[in-house]
């Protein structure tokens, strides 16, 4: 059994909680310590089994409808001048589901209608407030107020990616073409999207390729690959892009990891943990590297 301090470091390393320096130091220790290597393998085996074996269910449609109706009642109670048609939704789960379905579309339409104002700017400003220091904040805000058109396209892309991810999670929206293996998805993309992304399955590593889908953003038909990882769905979007690659970020509880390969932009979106999302990214990049060199 490793000593207590080494053990807590082992868990932190395993959970991706060590910074790069500490992780490298621990890897040095691993090379010389068979005990810790065995302990790490044990942790990995149990995690894989948990993620593969534990049952999970999605919230029933009836529950989603009940909650929507309850929220409608709550909202109308706090705004007494306006009567919301809450009972219609309560009586009809499908209507409530449809209401959920239109969310992403509504957000997009609203943004178009109001130009560069509205929710996307609001959340962009919030991100600045939490992320930047005071002086920088003032300078950035001034820049932001003077030239909103320079900033909003980036915010719009992040919104588009998150919206596309959320919409894909609705029943029957996840894939247009199911994957039996990568050879069913790749040819489908050829006829349905404007790009030809790398298609890989990583079932053995805990990321099962579910299939492909076409999404529309950045003025083109972008490709989306859906992976299942435990109860989480990961969407990997790809499109042809230019300009600065957006930085990895978290939006509305979803992590977005960006990278580029040739003239293609990629973004992996999910509510997995960061280490788990970045692991898929490195798997895809390693597979791409192998293909282009081998």
């Amino acid at each position, binding site marked *: 059994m490793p000593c207590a301090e080494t*053990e807590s470091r082992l*868990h932190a390393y395993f*959970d991706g909680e060590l910074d790069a320096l500490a992780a490298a130091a621990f890897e040095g220790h691993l090379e010389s310590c068979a005990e810790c290597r065995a302990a790490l393998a044990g942790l990995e085996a149990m995690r894989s089994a948990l*993620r593969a074996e*534990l049952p999970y269910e999605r*919230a029933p449609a009836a529950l989603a409808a009940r909650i929507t109706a309850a929220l409608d009642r709550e909202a109308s109670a706090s705004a007494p001048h306006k009567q919301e048609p809450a009972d219609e939704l309560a009586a009809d789960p499908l209507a409530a589901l449809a209401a959920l379905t239109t969310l992403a579309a509504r957000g997009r339409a609203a943004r178009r209608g109001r130009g560069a104002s509205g929710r996307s700017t609001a959340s962009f400003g919030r991100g600045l407030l939490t992320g930047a220091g005071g002086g920088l904040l003032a300078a950035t805000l001034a820049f932001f107020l003077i030239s909103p058109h320079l900033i909003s396209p980036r915010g719009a892309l992040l919104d588009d990616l998150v919206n596309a991810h959320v919409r894909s999670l609705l029943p029957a929206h996840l894939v247009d073409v199911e994957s039996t293996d990568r050879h069913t998805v790749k040819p489908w993309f050829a006829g349905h999207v404007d790009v030809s992304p790398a298609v890989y399955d990583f079932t053995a590593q805990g990321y099962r390729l579910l299939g492909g889908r076409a999404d529309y953003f950045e003025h083109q038909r972008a490709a989306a690959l859906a992976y299942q990882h435990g109860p989480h769905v990961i969407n990997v979007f790809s499109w042809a892009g230019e300009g600065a690659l957006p930085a990895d970020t*978290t939006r*509305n509880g979803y992590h977005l990891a960006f990278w580029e390969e040739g003239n293609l932009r990629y973004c992996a979106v999910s509510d997995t943990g960061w280490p788990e999302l970045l692991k898929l990214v490195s798997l895809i990049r390693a597979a791409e590297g192998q293909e282009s060199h081998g």
Partner: protein
Amino acid sequence: MTVEPSFTEARRARFDAEVLPHLDAAYRFARWLARSPADADDLVQEAMLRAFRGFDGLRGGDVKAWLFAIVRNCHLTGIAQRDRRGFVPLPEEGDPQHGALVCPAPGPESASMRRDEERSLARLLEDLAPEHREVLILREIEELDYREIAAVTQVPIGTVMSRLARARAALKVRWSMRSEEERDAMR
């Protein structure tokens, strides 16, 4: 063009866009806390309403961890109310009383998984102390990081780390016992 949406409508739209997408995750977590699927439904609905009322307090923070904390608090409040003793403080870890909060058979149970229930990892998890089961679910299944788990369970990160190590050790013991039994059965 329609008129500008009211403040209430804008707030609701923001909630729909930022919180409701995490309904499935909240439900999964609730299934591990609640006694039955019906209880999980009630728990999630209550939590969503509370989340909506407290939504203005959330400013660009971690939506999922915030929602999970509300689900968990609703669950604990519900237990306290069922005990009809008003407020019940959470027992300390290691307190022999902490078992009082354990529901006899929580966790998702579909017909398909009942078959191997006795041996399943889900069953092994259910046998763990609730704070051990919870930290394992949050880390290994929901993939929250230490900081987020600390926010959900309202304990310091150091406690999260020691709890997680103990939980993994406890599950490992049960799991290797199962593996041994399976090996014996093969002979």
